[in-house]
């Protein structure tokens, strides 16, 4: 393996022009590099009153790519996701492009399949009916949607559970139902917001491997938020490290590990090297947000 990774340090917004030219050769490692980005964010800022959650956020996601986002808590990851899901409009001035066309965040409603942190299953719907919720909203007849979901059940480890209700399922299974709902809502871009955050370590490791299998089969584009660096490296083609609030991209790290990735890869020297780089960057930002929190305390 030649150069493992190319690291771009983004300390000043003025480097942005230079960055855009340097991003292209990096992505040349992946087959999708030639295609134009599916999603592009340029100088996206979002503030809530006096608090700036995102400042000059820049990112682009190529079709079929698996991009993971890590950052210290409270860095505006969820704000980023709400914007891309179409739930929140960024401040004026930023550019949001989807499939090459510039658009408002609200235009993305119904065009991105979004999975929040909690499984958010409806307790009055059984597994199949929860999975087809998005299809129903789209207007697909129930029988057709159910038939489609039933075919997918085994792949999601839910065969035989179609009639069960959420309160009868384990946490991992509930999460898989939520993922299935996200997959059935066939959109080019999938947004996953810490989907495995609430699971125990063993279940989480299994879910990660399983997600990679499903992703490779369906070839969707995924933007995946996590606070777990191992998870970010294990899953992603590229990891974006966010700065402390206001959030922007501190580091963009290409993960050049071969696929399919074996679970043992987490102990490989390349993996550990990547992890060290990312942890250093996150550590720096965590300290910043910690110090600013302490300073705020003192100011009071």
């Amino acid at each position: 393996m030649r150069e493992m990774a190319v690291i771009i340090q983004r300390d000043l917004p003025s480097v942005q022009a230079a960055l855009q030219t340097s991003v292209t050769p990096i992505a040349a490692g992946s087959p999708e590099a030639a295609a134009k980005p599916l999603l592009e964010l340029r100088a996206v800022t979002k503030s809530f009153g006096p608090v700036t959650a995102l400042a000059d956020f820049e990112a682009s996601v190529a079709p079929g790519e698996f991009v993971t986002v890590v950052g210290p808590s409270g860095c505006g990851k969820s704000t980023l996701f709400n914007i891309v899901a179409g739930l929140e409009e960024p401040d004026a001035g930023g550019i949001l492009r989807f499939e090459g066309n510039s658009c408002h965040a609200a235009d993305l409603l119904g065009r991105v399949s979004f999975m929040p942190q909690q499984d958010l299953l409806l307790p009055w719907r059984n597994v199949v009916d929860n999975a087809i919720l998005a299809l129903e909203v789209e207007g697909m007849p129930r029988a057709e949607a159910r038939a489609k979901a039933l075919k997918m059940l085994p792949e999601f480890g839910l065969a035989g559970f179609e009639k069960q209700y959420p309160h009868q399922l384990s946490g991992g299974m509930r999460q898989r139902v939520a993922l299935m709902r996200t997959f059935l809502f066939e959109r080019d871009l999938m947004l996953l917001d810490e989907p495995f955050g609430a699971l125990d370590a063993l279940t989480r490791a299994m879910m990660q491997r399983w997600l990679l299998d499903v992703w490779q089969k369906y070839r969707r584009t995924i933007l995946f938020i996590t606070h777990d660096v191992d998870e970010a490296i294990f899953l992603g083609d590229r990891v974006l490290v966010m700065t402390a609030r206001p959030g922007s991209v501190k580091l963009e790290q290409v993960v050049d590990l071969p696929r399919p990735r074996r679970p043992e890869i987490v102990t490989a020297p390349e993996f550990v090297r990547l992890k060290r780089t990312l942890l250093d960057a996150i550590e720096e930002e965590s300290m910043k947000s910690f110090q600013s929190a302490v300073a705020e305390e003192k100011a009071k």
Partner: protein
Amino acid sequence: MSIGSTASLVEDKAAAGLRPGRLPGWMRKTARLLLGLAVTALLWEGSVQLFGIRPAYLPRLSAILAAMAATPRAYLDGFLRTLAETLIGFAAGGAFGVLIGIAFFRLRALREMIFPIFVVSQTIPVIAFGALVVLWFGNTLLAKAVIAFYLTFFPVTVNTLLGLETVDPKLVALMKSFGASNRQLLLRLQLPTALPHIFVALRLASSLSLVGAIVGEWFGDTTGIGVLLLQAMYTENVVALWGALLAAALLGTGFYAVVAAAERRLVFWSAEQ
């Protein structure tokens, strides 16, 4: 790769309830209930005889049942008439309460305009209101249903509103990200979420609507449980009074049981969680 093995973690609740050699749960429950009723009836009958309680205070249960059996027509007609008034008032109050609750939820301005008036309306004693209704509608079945309605719509409105407001904003965001319209949000998310709260109010409304119907009958009518109560009171016929009481208890309990059964069927998820 499949992770179906975690499937076995799911508890098999159905198996636990059906151990061999025992009656199913509902049969045992019914048997216990009947036993309780029988014991109460025996205690009633026995203590009246044992302590020599005068019939003016508490007649024997058997005497009451005998009196009811002697004139079954009056009790049956009264029961059915009051049942009809109760049901109409309950259905109208429930439907109106849910609709107005949704309207208040959607339109804040409407809520701020109308809700205080609703509260004021509920502070008017039902007796005063009943007199007015009889003036408007005469001694008709409708008049009684209106009084039953008056007592039921308010708790249903309040609980519908309360239930709609408990909807998790994250779920609303999720549905919106699927491109859901307001109508889809209401039918697929908000109303089902509010259903447990609505049923709490409906159970309360089932008793209140019976009160409304009986009070309505006191303003003048010829059939109904309220009429039987009033007639027994004027003639100081204690046995007939107790007969009317039993009929009212039967109606109230039966109606409540039906609403509670519907609740268990429709909001199965909140009971099992």
